[in-house]
């Protein structure tokens, strides 16, 4: 997993709440057995119409947001299906950070396993960033170490993050290798575990 600390980019304002993982990556793309290559299918049914033509109204298709690494959305981002294909698609498309007032649990967990930083800001702060980003391209600098998002207008937003997951992201740790250090505890638990 690639470590992450500072990300400097314009934001992509996705002004919707309850963005579910079925929208992030639609079921027709879940049959692949690889982890990579899902980016081109991200938000497929919003990006393309039934004939496969680009929907120019959709934010990801607008020229001013190309190259963005930071996605900003409304409440309850990533709800629904547990499919990790959703964060894989987000990462593969080029996003490293997602900012929203709240995230669905499984999606939130899945981000940490893939080197994506999910940032919770308040609804008011998200509304403000979305409004700025919709009005004209708005860049921010995300600093995980400092736990801040600093806008190009100087506005500073700070966020909380679980210290354990912060370390994981900063160091790009592989969680399974970490857990292997606790193998004796696992063994001890198994020895006394009750099973009928």
């Amino acid at each position, binding site marked *: 997993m690639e470590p992450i600390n500072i990300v400097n980019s314009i934001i992509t304002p996705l002004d919707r709440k309850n963005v579910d993982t079925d929208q992030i990556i639609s079921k027709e793309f879940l049959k692949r*057995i690889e982890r990579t290559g899902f980016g081109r299918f991200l938000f497929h049914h919003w990006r393309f119409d039934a004939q496969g033509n680009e929907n120019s109204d959709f934010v990801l298709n607008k020229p001013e947001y190309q190259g963005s690494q930071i996605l900003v959305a409304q409440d309850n981002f990533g709800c629904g299906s547990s*499919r990790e294909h959703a964060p894989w698609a987000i990462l593969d498309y080029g996003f490293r950070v997602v900012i929203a007032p709240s995230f669905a649990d*499984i999606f939130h967990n899945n981000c940490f396993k893939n080197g994506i930083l999910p940032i919770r800001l308040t609804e008011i702060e998200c509304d403000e960033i979305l409004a700025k980003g919709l009005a004209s391209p708005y860049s921010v600098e995300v600093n995980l170490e400092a736990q801040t998002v600093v806008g190009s207008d100087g506005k500073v937003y700070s966020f909380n993050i679980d210290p354990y997951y912060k370390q994981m992201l900063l160091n790009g740790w592989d969680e399974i290798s970490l857990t*292997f250090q606790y193998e004796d*505890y696992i063994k001890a638990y198994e020895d006394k575990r009750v*099973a*009928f």
Partner: protein
Amino acid sequence: MAKNIVEKIWDSHVVYQEAGKPDLLYIDLHLIHEVTSPQAFEGLRLAGRKVRRPDLCFATMDHNVPTKNLPTINDPIAKKQIMTLADNAKEFGIQLADIGHPDQGIVHVIGPELGLTQPGKTIVCGDSHTSTHGAFGALAFGIGTSEVEHVLSTQTLWQSKPPTMEIRVNGQLGIGVAAKDIILAIIAKWGIGVGTGHIVEYTGEAIRNLSMEERMTICNMSIEAGAKAGLISPDQTTVEFLRERRFAPSAESFDEAANYWLSLASDTDCTYDVVLEINAEEIEPFVTWGTNPSMGTGVSKTVPTSADYTSESDKSALNKALTYMGLEEGQPISSIEIQHVFIGSCTNSRLSDLRTAANIIEGKKVAPGVNAIVVPGSYSTKAAAEKEGLHKIFLDAGFEWRESGCSACLGMNEDIIPFGERCASTSNRNFEGRQGAGARTHLVSPAMAAAAAIEGHFVDVRKYVTQVV
């Protein structure tokens, strides 16, 4: 100190605890399906790791499998994914209910059927509807593929203990009102984010009176309320369901197991971080009209209007949903005409669901212009239904009687609802495109789906139920 069931199960599964870190929790049962596992097995291979406890894993294929013309799988990519699971199960020594195996079915249907699902277990699966197994008083939750890989290699997960929420359903449910209506009413009342970050325990008289299959319907949709897991304390109903199931404790140790299970029930004076209450009497048969499971209302009601909402974002969400669904503000629910009926999915495809639907349609015909299919949740459910002759009732009425699998719940196989058409579905998600690009899904109970099949639009199923009585 009095504990609720979540605390009891959690505390007995902690392998390692340290301040400032999540707990390392032991996992008792790992269910596996073809869509969310291939990358996890590939990860093991790349790192040269083994499956720590293949004996605590059980795999099946459900999402991609065709429900007709088996064993032919036309879609080469789906076929590859299915074959990949078969190969992985073999390579890593994991039990598999393969295509054509009598145990095969939707993973959340077969776990309980086989008696793999038991009170007090921690159960995970790379699938958000793993919450279904909570009906037995198990701590069951969905995980991502990286976590699948973590469980395969260590049989544990790092988890921070979430706060708990009690949802108490008081009173008695009316005749013709289903478990599905309870959970849809809960989600409509408090929203799809109400449970976010919480584990929900469902309590109260109306819950106690439910059968195991009905409890599974409720717990299944916990994730639709955003909850990490949903469960119900075990009682005698739970114990009797498990007696003599294949993987349940044998006759010699069953009573001991049953006593242990019953001891896991939440203590009477335990507490929760949040408590919500709803009255069963106020719940009527439900129909969703929008593009998430909270956008639903009673069948006697109308589609909301923007005047019903105060915030601009809610008004715009209503607008987007109604545009997608092709509905008008204020339109009566009973005026919504449907072209498809899908009775199936891990929410409502068990024997009692099929019996209820068959009861409604017996001697009647599917309305002209409606395509109706029944997809039993597992091969064992299918066989049991056929033994009772339920398939004949469905076929005589004009339903198709399919092989088992996830089918039109998510339309990964050929069972797709065409663009712009409308489906009365007993599944759990009405997201945009869930059943097919542009497809319009209305979530309902099996009884409501059956009644809609006969009339071609939504009707209050209670009219049929009173006819039967």
